[in-house]
């Protein structure tokens, strides 16, 4: 096994249990001793370092969290700064800052781990791992022990933080969905620590290296690709946009040119008000209100998978897409998504490649 992780990326080690992904990760900070081969950090071998000094520079978060039951949240978070001999005042400020960053209330500082919820403990564990601001993080199924709903939120929070902090992360999981969501790059391991493929999530989904990877990624990998693309990456339908008071004749003319049978009523800021029906167009001027609400309104930054979920939930075929200011930029339909799923052309591949890094 040999691969390189670019600084600031999340590299996910994924594979079935017993494939050695945790062992591989634990070699980075020498929790598992290296008998052959080498690991370089910034070009320097980890073997040249004293293990405890090396470890203080590498954040370490594990599934069972391993908070110290006898220490308060503040003392737990302060573990590595204390080892490094930071002055008390700096440690206190850092703990307060980390509680904020991890969206934990300050009064938790004096509590003991047993008094926290599972999600809070997880966040304290991550806060403790980043306390001394290590440039490298090792995370072994850090979100494995929390319920799926909380996990989704904690994952998003972590990705949001990672967007600012740009740590180099080695992330171990057995969950391919988590790997695709969290990873900038994914290393798929087979039994015996064999590297089956090392690629971006998009590459992995579009061109698995072998049967093992294809199997591991799953039969629904087409669906998984929806998590890699954002709504704005799709060639959206052009909506026939009309404003209250426009001539209905003009609205009818727009319908003829568009992909949609109904015009979308928008306000002066371009925000969607609703879909106009035949009856709404009976008068000479477009009315103030539309017959049908324009739900769901889709955010151009959502991933396609959640956009599809929103459409299905509203039991509708299409919905207006808005930009950050809330103005309509187009319409996404279930039909467009299914076209995307069916398409195999290189243009789509490029789009996925581009989007994959951010997804």
């Amino acid at each position: 096994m040999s691969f390189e992780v670019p600084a600031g990326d999340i590299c996910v080690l994924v594979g079935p249990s017993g494939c050695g992904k945790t062992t591989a990760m634990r070699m980075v900070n020498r929790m598992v001793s290296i008998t052959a081969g080498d690991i370089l950090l910034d070009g320097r071998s980890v073997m040249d370092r004293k293990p405890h000094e090396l470890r203080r520079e590498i954040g370490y978060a594990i599934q069972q969290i391993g908070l110290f039951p006898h220490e308060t949240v503040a003392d737990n978070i302060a573990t590595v700064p204390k080892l490094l001999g930071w002055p008390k005042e700096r440690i206190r400020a850092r703990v307060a800052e980390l509680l904020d960053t991890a969206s934990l209330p300050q009064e938790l500082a004096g509590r003991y781990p047993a008094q926290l919820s599972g999600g809070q403990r997880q966040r304290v564990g991550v806060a403790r791992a980043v306390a001394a601001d290590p440039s490298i993080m090792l995370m072994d199924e850090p979100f494995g022990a929390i319920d799926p709903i909380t996990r989704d939120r904690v994952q998003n929070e972590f990705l949001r933080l990672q967007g600012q902090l740009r740590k180099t992360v080695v992330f171990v999981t057995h969950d391919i969905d988590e790997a695709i969501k969290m990873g900038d790059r994914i290393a798929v391991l087979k039994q015996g620590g064999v590297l089956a493929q090392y690629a971006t999530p998009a590459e992995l989904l579009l061109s698995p290296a072998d049967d093992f990877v294809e199997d591991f990624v799953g039969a629904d990998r087409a669906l998984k690709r929806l998590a890699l693309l954002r709504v704005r990456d799709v060639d959206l339908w052009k909506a026939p946009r009309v404003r209250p008071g426009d001539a209905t004749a003009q609205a009818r003319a727009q319908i003829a040119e568009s992909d949609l049978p109904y015009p979308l009523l928008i306000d002066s800021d371009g925000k969607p008000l609703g879909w106009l029906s035949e009856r709404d167009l009976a008068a000479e001027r477009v009315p103030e209100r539309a017959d049908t609400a324009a739900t769901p309104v889709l955010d151009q930054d959502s991933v396609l998978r959640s956009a599809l979920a929103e459409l299905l939930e509203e039991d509708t075929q299409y919905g207006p897409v808005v930009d950050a200011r809330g103005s309509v930029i187009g319409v996404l339909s279930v039909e467009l998504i299914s076209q995307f799923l069916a398409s195999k052309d290189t243009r789509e591949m490029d789009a996925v490649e581009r989007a994959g890094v951010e997804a």
Partner: protein
Amino acid sequence: MSWLEVFAQVEIHRRTDTCVNQNGFCPDWIVNNFSDRYVDPLFRHLELVLVSVAAGFVIAFALGIVAHRRRWLVGPIVGVTGVLYTIPSVAAFLLLIPITGFGLITAVIALTAYTLLIIFRNVVDGLNATPDEARDAARGMGLTDNQVLWRVEVPLALPEIFAGLRIATTTTVGLAALAFFAGAGGLGGLIFGDLVFKSNVVVAGGLCILMAFALDGLLLIAQRLLTPWVRARQA
């Protein structure tokens, strides 16, 4: 105080006090005689207990730390301290007297030996009770082996260690009542000095029981102060 003296004193009182003459429970007599007869032996008894438990704790804790690092030592240490524990205390005093003489030292050596097994086992169990993930996280964050021991394992072992200390202390209060056989004094000398006189037995025996309760209570308070996280769990 020799047996004869005790006997003589009792005789004097018996001539003047019917309650005392009948070997009854006599509050007046207790009030009049308490400070002269019982205070010094009480403090001697306390001294025996504190010195023995402290010495036993130091030795057993050190052995526990060593055995925690070298697991194979646990068996032999439990074996040896277990044998010490089974020797009848009076026999131990008599065996030691030719070597260490009649007095405090002999009693303390024997009493200390009795605390070793209990404290040692609790120290070892306590150090093992650290959750694996806490130990793994500690090492993964760069604590050295010594730091893991003193900052994680020992604090987390405190509840177990205190449990051992409490049993050892209570047991030693009782055993120290036999220390007068080794010439070390204590409340035992008074109890056995006049087993027939109820007032004497109640006061001397009662002081032993009170001492056991008091020391146990102090240890419990110390444990609560030193292990705040244990109670936080229920909060």
